[in-house]
């Protein structure tokens, strides 16, 4: 299977849904995913957890992923778990390393379904041991099912932070306090954005409202409108300082702080291929420029799921199917399932996305995130602070030169953690819009690769 019709990167809702449609229609499909089991972030570990008390605690939406995972397992696509894609050449030569070693795949088409990443939100002290993201904490809940023994402090904004708090409580954990960094939004304006979706999505809205109510009720403390968040400590986290909406500075003691400021499309792969991206002001994120099928500026690459723009799991399923339908069309095949039509998928996608403008508005991150104070570390790998970057900005043009001057973005995270902040600093320093500033050029490999794994590709010279 080194020359499949379709290579899908990512086995989350979008990747699996696309694979099911494409493989059932007779295409040779390879799906490569970094996790040991299918499901992506949202349905991580669902095969093991569904039907258990942990699954029930994680909720019905989580358990609903089991059907898709099962259909994916049986659809005929070749599935390579625990495998990293670390380079895709413009001619689609794709380098992967997994349990089977390092291989080069040359598919006819590629579907990128790499999902989302948490928005890097630098604050003072965020590199201290004891500060972790809500996303990372949620992985722990789903995998070994470890519930933090102490009550946790959560600081942030976004549905995932609320969902995590909800799930944690259901699993017997406790929220010591929730520092809500969500800026207040006029409810009427936000609801207008939801429009008629409010009627259709009343269940979803009610669920969100109940999470909030639960949080206010169950959390030790709930503090709205928090700004100037700062993690305190020398070697590891000792406490958190913040300012309340009323302007009062408060300090709490804790050894664990979970932070979260929303999610972004994971664009590293997409950008490495030179695919066009644009700034989406509504989502305060870059997203790829796509047509209604998920086709991008590279003729043989499609993008689906949250990597195409944050839409959530339900939208990811339908975007994955739509991209698969387009791929079938391009390769002269038709979908095997009778109901799998473009029209049905578009209707379902529209429904899944109806509430999105409302959510984007309500959970729009505070401006502080894009303009941290001078003392805040931006590039974690090279430990560069805002002031280091501002100083270098005086004499350089653009992010790539800034990188050369300061080494920001040269470390193992390859700019994933600092790229957006650097772009924002440049935009602010030069009075430009985010849409005019491009993040760092992506250098390969997309993910770090061991020297021996690269060496294994050489015809000669192996020492072992």
């Amino acid at each position, binding site marked *: 299977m080194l020359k499949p019709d379709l290579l899908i990167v990512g086995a989350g809702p979008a990747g699996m849904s696309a694979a099911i449609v494409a493989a059932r229609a007779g295409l040779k499909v390879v799906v490569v995913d970094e996790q040991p089991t299918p499901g992506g972030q949202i349905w991580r570990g669902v095969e093991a957890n569904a039907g258990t008390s942990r699954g029930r605690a994680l909720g019905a939406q989580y358990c609903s992923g089991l059907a898709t995972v099962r259909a994916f397992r049986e659809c005929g696509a070749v599935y390579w778990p625990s495998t990293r894609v670390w380079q895709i050449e413009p001619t689609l030569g794709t380098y992967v390393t997994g349990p089977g070693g390092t291989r080069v795949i040359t598919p006819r088409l590629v579907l990128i379904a790499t999902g989302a990443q948490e928005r890097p939100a630098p604050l003072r002290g965020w590199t201290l041991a004891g500060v972790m993201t809500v996303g990372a904490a949620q992985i722990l809940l789903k995998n070994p099912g470890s519930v933090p023994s102490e009550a946790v402090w959560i600081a942030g904004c976004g549905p995932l932070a609320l969902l995590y708090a909800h799930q944690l409580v259901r699993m017997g954990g406790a929220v010591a306090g929730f520092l809500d960094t969500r800026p207040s939004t006029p409810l009427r304006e936000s609801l207008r954005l939801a429009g008629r979706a409010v009627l259709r999505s009343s269940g979803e809205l009610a669920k969100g409202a109940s999470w909030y109510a639960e949080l206010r009720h169950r959390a030790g403390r709930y503090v709205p409108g928090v700004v100037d968040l700062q993690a305190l400590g020398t070697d590891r986290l000792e406490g958190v300082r913040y300012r309340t909406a009323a302007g009062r500075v408060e300090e709490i003691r804790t050894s664990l702080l979970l932070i979260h400021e929303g999610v972004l499309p994971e664009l590293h792969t997409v950008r490495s291929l030179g695919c066009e991206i644009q700034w989406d002001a509504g989502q305060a994120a870059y997203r790829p420029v796509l047509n209604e099928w998920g086709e991008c500026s590279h003729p043989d690459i499609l993008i689906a799921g949250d990597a195409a723009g944050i839409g959530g799991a339900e939208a990811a399923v339908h975007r994955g199917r739509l991209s698969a339908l387009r791929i079938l069309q391009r390769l002269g095949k038709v979908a095997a399932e009778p109901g799998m039509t473009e029209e049905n998928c578009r209707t379902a996608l529209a429904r899944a996305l109806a509430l999105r403008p409302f959510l984007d508005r309500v959970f729009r991150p505070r401006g502080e995130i894009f303009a941290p104070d001078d003392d805040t570390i931006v590039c974690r790998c090279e430990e560069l602070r805002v002031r280091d970057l501002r100083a270098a900005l005086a004499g350089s*043009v653009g992010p790539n*030169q800034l990188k050369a001057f300061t080494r920001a973005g040269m470390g193992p995270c390859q700019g994933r953690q600092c790229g957006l902040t650097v772009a924002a600093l440049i935009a602010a320093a030069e009075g430009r819009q985010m849409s005019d500033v491009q993040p760092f050029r992506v250098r390969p490999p997309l993910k770090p690769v061991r020297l021996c794994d*690269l060496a294994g590709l050489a015809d*000669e010279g*192996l020492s072992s």
Partner: protein
Amino acid sequence: MKAGQATTAVIGGGLHGLACALALVQRGQDVVLFERSWIGRRASGATAAGVRTLWRDPAEIALSLEALERWYRMDALVGDDCGFRAGGQIKVAESHAEMEALAARSARTRDLGFHHEELIDPRELRRLAPMISEHCVGGLIARRDGAADPHRTIAAFRGAAEGYGAVIREGISVMALEPDAGGWRVVTDAGNWSVRHVVNAAGAWGGQVCRMVGEAIRFGYKASMVFVTERVQQAFGPVFSTVGRPLSFKQSSQGTLVVGGGIQGWADLEKGSTQVDFRALARGAAAAQTLFPAIRNVQIVRAWTGLEGKTPDLLPVIGPSARAPGVFHTFGFSGHGFELVPLVGEIIADCIMHGRSHYDIGAFDVARLLV
């Protein structure tokens, strides 16, 4: 300097262009430097930054030794040591046949009167490189060689040149060079400049600048690749290369391992685009792992492809144009120009101002490449 007028225009904002500009402004000339993208965008920003006199073509040895002295007093020249660390450079022999090749080379260089290269036995090799593989039998070392930090070097040369008054114009392409009364008209996409002299420091595009003045030459390009790993604890002092494999291996001052060796990636000179070829780069990884088996699990975090001019004899083009008076060349360093930077700028400045250099640059005459 009046807008649109300068004594000398330098085409190309790589290190050689900057060094030329610096030497000229230090000698009191008005200099404008045009760079199509940004300073250090190409080979200068992509180099593994070896400061190497070891294993040079005999024609280059004298220049490289003179340049090396300048690396030792770089701070005085440009206000920064450019991260230069003199850990030595070693060419490693992996077999007795290779050791004999090193001995023959060493004898030849000594016959020419140079004593900077020294044969070392396995014991000395292991003293200098405790982690080197058992099978390596010795090497040839230039103990005063080393490596520098390319980005610091670029910043220092740029800062020094601007400090002395050089005008650096980034984002400007030179479209044509036209003879003008007593000099040249430099036609750019942002207006024309009248100058007396033109320096062609255009790297991979040096051949195109030659064509602008009617000097067609045999010329190609190199697209050499480099990869860098995460930081490692181990200390590798010298820079390593081998007799039989494409490899250059060193530890940067940040602790990362930098591996190159002239393995070629893909490039499109017209579009100015490059691409890493990991199948080819795998040979470099294999070579590094063979020499230092302990690093096999180190993570590679970045790889890139530079773009650099290449001549048929792999020697640079340094000196006056053969056909166009007032035009001077410094390009085509074929992947080993970094070490020569602090000297060649002075040579060109002397050629421009005094009509000659007191260094022998006959082997680098553009006339040898004319078609």
